[in-house]
């Protein structure tokens, strides 16, 4: 993703949060929100393919029903077996991509990310059906 596109998305995200927080779309408030969004410090972003980010955002949305499915599985059957696993990642070094990947793993209740390995994959704590 080109850096200026990333920057625009950041501004849009901050402005969106500001508008939700104030629930006021008057011109003055829009101006104040825009000013704040620009004034807040920029993160040190590195270029990343937009397809990768969009794909991950889509996966996060799709993971929501899956998370509820796993919650119902945990409610109905005892999940007592714990296991450490390695889940492959995209290998991107962008903090946004790493955030989305960790979020994706941890959102579903049966898996929690424990950290990123040097090769870009993730160490994951997984809960499985059965007794310990």
């Amino acid at each position: 993703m080109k850096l200026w596109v990333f920057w625009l998305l950041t501004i849009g995200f901050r402005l969106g949060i500001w508008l939700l927080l104030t629930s006021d779309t008057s011109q003055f408030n829009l101006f104040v929100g825009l000013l704040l969004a620009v004034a807040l410090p920029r993160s040190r972003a590195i270029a990343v393919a937009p397809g990768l980010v969009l794909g991950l955002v889509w996966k996060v949305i799709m993971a929501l029903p899956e998370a509820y499915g796993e919650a119902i599985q945990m409610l109905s059957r005892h999940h007592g077996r714990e296991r450490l696993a390695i889940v492959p990642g995209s290998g991107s070094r962008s903090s946004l991509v790493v955030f989305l990947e960790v979020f994706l793993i941890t959102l579903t209740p049966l898996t929690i990310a424990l950290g990123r390995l040097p090769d870009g994959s993730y160490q994951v704590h997984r809960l499985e059906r059965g007794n310990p």
Partner: protein
Amino acid sequence: MITLPTLVTLISDLLLLFGLVFWLWGTWPLLGRASYLAKLHSLSISDTLGSALIVVGLLLKLPREWPLLSLALLSLVVWNTLFGYVLAVCSLSRPATGRPE
């Protein structure tokens, strides 16, 4: 004959109820003897998924408060998930190191 407002009230009540069930069910294992990480797994059910159901139920009940409720929904889901990750990583004696730049 079920009217639309009755149906919406019914759905939002059900969502609130399921949210409460998720909350209680996910918090109960905290008192047990399961490992720290196993407790975090069930806590993410109550924290993230239960709270999200409750906020969606409230969203149906109070549609005019949608800006604040949707902000609450977003922050609850993002924060609780990331907080679970941070707690899990902090529990390790030697966390995996592959820091992003």
